[in-house]
């Protein structure tokens, strides 16, 4: 009967009525099945309705899409999606880690000579150091209240499960985005047909429509007057191009490494509380200024298409940010972890400062990037014109901000709360800045493929980097002795070992112990899994190749048959 109900839920009303009529059952049984399938359908609809009432910012998104088009809207959709990650993370952390501690011990044990000054909001140290904001504020006991709540296990598993769920969500959305946006042949990127198909139906603003039409006109004229793309360059010209490319890549990589090295050197100067703001300030300043410098490279570097140029710019920015983050993580794990007691709280504070200063600089960047450009473009240098909204730069800033939150989750469980406020304010700020200062994009860009690229960037290297750092911390580094939920243990992961030892005494859970000892702790299992995955990937790859060949053959057949 369950199978019948499942089938009927998926049919439409008329089909369902007909199908129920055809059943060889008694009338009572048919009525029962009808009621059941109707009930499930109604449940499905009410879930859909409920999900819709929770949708944020629908009206604003419609307005932005109507005036600026789908590609600019994709930035705001991405921001909303990242906000959901943070809301989920905050709820999970607050619910499973903070609330039990607050219920058990509501007053934070602050030493008597520390009081709240205003500086804490910026530096995160001082008063906040002794609250549940950071790792150091959590106890390592088993709280006895209504139930026995093991804080160590709770802390470890909450963070581990959250990271795993994030990773899965990212992988799924990357796969889904790749599936919808996968393009088989890269043949005509600027062809007439592409341009005709690219009309954005969601634009409703009259001026935007007029502008789009004139942009399309310009692009059509360009595509008509295209000369042969394959200009045969002479050998010396090819060498010259190669030299210029090599030089600019060396320069950008050198800049990234140089920034990283100077940050490492500056990290030594973190003694007093006010001085601790120096490093985040310099980091954000570099993240603001150096990409501007990179975008000047296009003046002397020639790429074959505009898309390659954008990708090169994105790769350089990613290199810069990864090197800065890498140097900071290296410093935290190798120097701070060995020098200070309660080092996790210090790392948490450093991340808090980075997040806050990054937010201030995002606001500043919006001011300079959009407001000043608008003023310059309209009053001072009319040749430049009204600026466009730089989607790539803004999305990279979002990805960087989210990476900071992901690294910081282990050291400061309530950091997602700050991130939620930050993203909320950022949404409205960017919306106002966009509507006041920017014009709709001139080229109808490849929004869908850029979207796939951005999600792929979010996942690898940023999320994987954050995950590796947290994993390395919990695997290899010794937790501090005086504070935090893991004090006294050799490393964080041994919490699981202790739990498994406890479980061995309980008779019903021998299978958990067996799984832990023979699956999770054995290297052979991981080796076999990796081998199987590699084989499956190879099979799928061959199937894809075969299908590509088949499509080519079929296309040839169509031409032959019709001629």
């Amino acid at each position, binding site marked *: 009967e369950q199978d019948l109900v499942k089938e009927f839920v998926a049919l439409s009303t008329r089909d369902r009525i007909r199908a129920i009529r055809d059943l060889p059952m008694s009338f009572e049984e048919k009525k029962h099945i009808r009621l059941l399938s109707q009930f499930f359908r109604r449940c499905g609809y009410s879930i859909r309705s409920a999900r819709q009432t929770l949708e944020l910012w629908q009206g604003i998104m419609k307005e932005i899409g109507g005036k600026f088009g*789908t590609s600019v809207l994709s930035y705001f959709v991405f921001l909303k999606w990242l906000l959901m990650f943070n809301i989920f993370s905050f709820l999970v952390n607050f619910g499973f880690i903070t609330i039990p501690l607050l219920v058990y011990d509501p007053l934070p044990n602050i030493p008597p000579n520390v009081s709240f000054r205003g500086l804490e909001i910026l530096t995160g140290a001082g008063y906040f150091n002794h609250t549940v904001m950071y790792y150091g504020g959590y106890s390592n006991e088993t709280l006895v209240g209504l139930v026995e709540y093991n804080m160590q296990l709770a802390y470890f598993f909450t963070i581990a499960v959250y990271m795993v769920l994030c990773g899965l969500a990212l992988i799924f959305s990357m796969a889904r985005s790749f599936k919808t946006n996968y393009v088989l042949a890269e043949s005509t990127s600027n062809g007439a047909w592409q341009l005709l*198909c690219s009309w954005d139906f969601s634009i409703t603003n009259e001026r935007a*429509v007029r502008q789009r039409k004139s942009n399309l006109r310009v692009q059509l004229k360009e595509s008509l007057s295209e000369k042969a793309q394959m200009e045969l360059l002479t050998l010396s010209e090819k060498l010259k191009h190669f030299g210029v490319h090599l030089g600019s890549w060396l320069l950008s990589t050198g800049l990234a490494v140089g920034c990283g090295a100077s940050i490492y050197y500056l990290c030594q100067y973190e003694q007093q509380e006010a001085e601790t703001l120096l490093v985040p300030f310099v980091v954000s300043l570099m993240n603001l200024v150096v990409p501007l410098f990179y975008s000047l490279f296009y003046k002397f570097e020639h790429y074959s298409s505009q898309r390659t140029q954008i990708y090169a710019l994105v790769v350089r920015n990613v290199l810069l940010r990864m090197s800065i983050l890498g140097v900071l993580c290296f410093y935290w794990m190798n120097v701070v972890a060995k020098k200070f007691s309660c080092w996790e709280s210090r790392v948490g504070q450093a991340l808090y400062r980075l997040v806050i200063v990054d937010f201030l600089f995002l606001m500043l960047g919006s001011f300079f990037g959009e407001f000043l450009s608008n003023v310059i473009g309209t009053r001072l240098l009319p040749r430049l014109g009204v600026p466009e909204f730089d989607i790539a730069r803004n999305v990279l800033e979002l990805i960087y901000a989210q990476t900071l939150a992901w690294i910081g989750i282990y050291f400061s469980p309530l950091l997602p709360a700050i991130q939620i406020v930050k993203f909320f304010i950022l949404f409205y700020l960017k919306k106002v800045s966009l509507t006041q200062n920017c014009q709709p994009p001139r080229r109808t860009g490849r929004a*869908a493929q850029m979207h796939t690229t951005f999600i792929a960037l979010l996942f690898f290297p940023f999320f994987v980097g954050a995950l590796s750092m947290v994993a390395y911390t919990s695997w290899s580094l010794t937790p501090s002795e005086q504070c935090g939920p893991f004090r006294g243990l050799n490393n964080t992961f041994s919490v699981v070992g202790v739990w498994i030892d406890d479980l061995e005494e309980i008779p019903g859970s021998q299978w958990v112990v067996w799984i832990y000892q023979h699956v999770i702790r054995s290297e052979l299992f991981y080796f076999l899994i990796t081998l199987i995955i590699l084989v499956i990937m190879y099979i799928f790859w061959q199937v894809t190749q075969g299908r590509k060949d088949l499509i080519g053959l079929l296309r040839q057949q169509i031409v032959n048959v019709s001629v």
Partner: protein
Amino acid sequence: MGNKQTTFTEEQLEAYQDCTFFTRKEILRLHGRYRELAPHLVPLDYTNNPDIRVPLTLIVTMPELKENPFRDRIVETFSEDGQGNLSFNDFVDMFSALCETSPRELKTIYAFKIYDFNRDNFICKQDLEKTVNKLTKGELSPEEVTLVCDKAIEEADLDGDSKLSFSDFENMISKAPDFLSNFHVRI
């Protein structure tokens, strides 16, 4: 559920939810928008399925469609009589096919019908010329328009009959991943 509304019966609302991508609240909101276009024509009570059609001239005054170069073709495609007079069912159907969750196959079918101006199930050169003129406001010279159309047909036509059948169109759409997000009207 407790939502007291007298516009539709529960069966009608369920039928709408079955056949479109909208939720209950959206359908009621759409009815409000439909009624706004012609308040003297469209009754508040739809429980007995009145046969009312709002003419094309009123539908294209909606802000979502007003500036769209293809507004006439869109409304004609979804109307039952082909003249652009939409009943409420057609109205809901139109916005459902153009909404965000509508699948690619559905959008491709309707896009083909919209671009096929003379409704002969082929996109021929005249159809393309009309499209180009609508999209460039007639500022390209006639030779340029002809060149663009020739180039477009050359790129897309697989079977060499110098007009595009549905399979040619579908093939070209599969190479344009932006189509799915661009062919979308927010309501």
